[in-house]
């Protein structure tokens, strides 16, 4: 097994086992979205109008939930020291940890979204459009979050700092993700324009995130 494949398998195993973050993220997402109709009431048109925004906000917070332990866990038990002594470049190590995090936290949200979308009065085409925006947009949330996770690595309770650093950076993805979903549901603006920008934001974060996070880790580890 190559070093990076070994790391991917390990991180995914840890995430899905007891105490891992995978189940926590999905449950949080389901609970938040399920509570929304109870809070807002049976106004079907209103629910349909704010549905994409609620789902996107819940996905954003759920994917941040387990992120603060991404590097801190490895730092606390000394694994990070040994990872730095491996032959794999730190940038790729960080990217692989991000991929493992997305596969265990982001992807389940995308799969669950149509189920809870029913509660928000979304019909089938709207569900499909929303799923597509989440599928494309959630990797951006994870990879932007990597930077915050790396900066907060040595802090005991880094979760709050992580949220403060990361949430403002996720605003563009949030705007264009919700805009694309709304365009597909209500119109009249075209779906393509915001969706293309969302794709671009994700691609940029896939490149910038690992480099920035690796640089932050190198500074912190001293």
């Amino acid at each position, binding site marked *: 097994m190559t070093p990076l494949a070994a790391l991917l398998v390990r991180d995914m195993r840890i995430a899905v086992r007891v105490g891992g973050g995978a189940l926590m993220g999905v449950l949080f997402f389901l609970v938040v979205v399920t509570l929304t109709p109870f809070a807002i009431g049976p106004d079907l048109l209103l629910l349909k109008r704010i549905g994409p925004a609620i789902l996107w906000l819940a996905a954003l917070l759920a994917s941040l939930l387990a992120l603060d332990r991404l590097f801190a866990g490895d730092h606390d038990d000394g694994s990070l*020291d040994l990872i730095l*002594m491996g032959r794999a470049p730190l940038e790729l190590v960080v990217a692989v940890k991000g991929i493992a995090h997305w596969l265990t936290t982001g992807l389940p949200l995308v799969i669950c979204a149509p189920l809870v979308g029913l509660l928000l009065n979304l019909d089938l085409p709207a569900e499909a459009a929303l799923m597509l925006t989440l599928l494309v947009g959630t990797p951006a949330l994870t990879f932007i979050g990597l930077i915050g996770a790396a900066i907060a690595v040595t802090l005991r309770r880094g979760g709050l700092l992580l949220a403060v650093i990361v949430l403002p950076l996720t605003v563009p993805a949030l705007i264009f993700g919700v805009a694309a979903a709304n365009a597909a549901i209500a119109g009249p603006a075209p779906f393509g324009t915001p969706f293309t920008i969302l794709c671009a934001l994700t691609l940029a974060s896939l490149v910038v995130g690992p480099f920035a996070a690796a640089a932050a880790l190198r500074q912190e580890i001293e």
Partner: protein
Amino acid sequence: MRLTAVELACHRGGRGVFSGVSFAVASGELLTVSGRNGAGKSSLLRMIVGLVRIAAGTLTLEGGDSELSIAEQAHYLGHQDALKGSLSVAENLRFWAGFYGLSSTDIRNPLEAIGLGALAALPAAYLSAGQRRRLSIARLVAVPRPIWLLDEPTSTLDAAAQERLADLMRAHLAGGGLIVAASHGPIGLASTQELRLGEAEA
């Protein structure tokens, strides 16, 4: 293979920890580092693998693989065990073997060598402190790397495990490896050289 340090200095948190530390260790040699608490034993070991910045001086390795850094040819056994409690003993060891580039690993032998063979399927969270230490040592056996940096290797180990560790160290030295060990007490085999830190300042 020869690891040479010339006039190394270390600063931590704006404070000078040690300076003017020089040594040379060759294949088959064991260097023990001693000194009072805070003298910089751990910092010296971490400095060798690049986890602490070298404030002054040089550190060179002759006769190693010139494509690789010193850290990539070294094992570091620190105070922390680098184990994940939710993974089994075998999964923990197999990860480090895979991450350090072994494609197919026989983890049976390293675990037997350190006396953990019967616990391979147990989650690491249930291990005692000494057993966790032994699992870390199994990593050194599973992945061949010529330089071993051991920080208090015998702490938490019982007499039988200390004896096993001494055997493993002897075998490593006989196979052409070199060891730098930081320790307060005897570690079970005679050292070739000794380095005392913190004498000058004290």
